């Protein structure tokens, strides 16, 4: 590991996927994924469960490592061996389907932990930052609450605040609303919608077609480990070309 190597992900990067392949137990999950997620824009990845959306996101911050191919954040090839992983990850936010909040810490401590531990902020600075972020996601009054005392939607909003606490220029959302009760989905999507107006690159794996249509700059349809179709939402949702996309949109009730 070359810890000294400075990773230049300081402005919101374009994320470039080049022929990304990944198999688990010789079952191909990603088979040559190639597309660009534009900088400072929201890219929504849609597609049926098991299409490889989650794995693709996990390859970006290297919770999984691609077997072959490259993923560039700006100029940095994050799929290269020997890349300083911790440094790269510190600049990429990730929001998980199952929230993964730290259950032993309060909402505020969940948010302030990484700035304190990874960035070396003082406890006061980190807490101040955490409270500001909790306010931003509308949860200031729950700063002292433990995750178990929060609803799923609130937990996911804390998780978004936690990701924002590291000032990421890129945020990965892995089906952030799929584990939520329907009535809790909207509050999370609203926070994400607001975020999308900032100078951040967002890649969102989602089943929320309305969100994709309204917010995304680019929609990528994946099926069975390949990108079947991509384009601006108007094109993807109004004029789908491939039979697989037409079929999928029919199944989710958009067409």
């Amino acid at each position, binding site marked *: 590991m070359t810890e000294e190597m400075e990773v230049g992900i300081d402005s919101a990067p374009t994320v470039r996927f080049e022929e990304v392949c990944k198999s688990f137990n010789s079952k191909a999950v990603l088979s040559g994924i190639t597309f660009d997620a534009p900088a400072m824009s929201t890219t929504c990845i849609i597609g049926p469960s098991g299409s490889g959306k989650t794995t693709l996101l996990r390859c970006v911050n290297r*919770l999984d490592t691609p077997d072959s191919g490259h993923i560039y954040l700006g100029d940095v090839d994050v799929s290269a061996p020997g890349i300083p992983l911790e440094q790269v990850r510190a*600049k*990429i936010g990730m929001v998980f389907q199952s929230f993964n909040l*730290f*259950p*032993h810490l309060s909402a505020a401590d969940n948010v302030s932990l990484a700035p304190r531990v990874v960035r070396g902020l003082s406890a006061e600075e980190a807490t101040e930052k955490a409270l500001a972020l909790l306010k931003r996601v509308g949860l200031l009054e729950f700063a002292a609450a*433990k995750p178990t005392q929060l609803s799923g939607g609130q937990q996911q909003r804390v998780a978004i605040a936690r990701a924002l606490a590291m000032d990421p220029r890129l945020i990965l959302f892995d089906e952030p609303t799929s584990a939520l009760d329907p009535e809790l989905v909207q509050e999370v999507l609203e926070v994400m919608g607001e975020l999308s107006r900032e100078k951040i690159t967002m890649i969102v794996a989602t089943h929320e077609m309305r969100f994709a249509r309204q917010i995304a700059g680019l929609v990528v349809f994946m099926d069975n480990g390949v990108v079947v179709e991509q384009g601006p939402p108007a094109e993807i949702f109004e004029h789908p070309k491939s039979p697989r996309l037409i079929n999928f949109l029919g199944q989710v009730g958009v067409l």
Partner: protein
Amino acid sequence: MGNVLQRLGHTFLNPQILAKTLPTLLKVGLPNTLILSAGAMALGLIVGLCIALVLLSRRMWLRGLGRVYVSVFRGVPHIVSIYLIGQGLPLAGISLFGGNSYLYAMLAIGIVEGAYISEILRSGVRGIPTGQFEASKALGMSNAQAMRHVIIPQSARAILPALTGQLNLVIKNTALVFLLGLQAGQRELFAIAQDNSSNYASLTPLVAAGFLYLLITVPLSYLVSSLDRRMGRSAGRVRGTSAMTSALAGGNGVGAGTI
């Protein structure tokens, strides 16, 4: 009938014999048992922690070595391990502590208990959902940072009961040091009780020793469960419960699929 009662009384609870042996048990046996226990526990925890890290290592050969250690010391009777370590080491010329069997005994018990404790620690860490590691990693934490701030605080509560049970076993296993031969002043509770029992042809000293063991082990258990409750208050809820509630609340819950 009276005869039977008298014999029972003499065998298990003879007041004169009790009066004669109790002072030695309290003055010599109890402190020695406590010192041996504390030393063996400290060593067991250190060894256990090291082996647990080995068992959690990403290197397969290292994990393999750890497994061998655990299998051997958990699989061989304590009495055999204690003989082999406590008598074997000095015999083989590895006389770490000269002729002091007391310290060999501490070492032997620590090495054996380390195997059990490592498994408890390992399972504690393994019991934390992988999502917790991943969330820590995604925030840029190193392995050590994730362990220290996320994993260990959560597993501490889960392993406390098992760890207490094991520490009680350490205390009881200190009785085995008599095997190594001790000087009079080094004898712990059991050695003194056993010597006196054969001298007086009555088991009264052993009964007394038994009570003294209880005097150590029972308060220890209570101490730990009160600690457990205190941690519970400061930690909000039990880890297990919270994982479960979030699983219930979240539908797909903890450790969702990777694809």
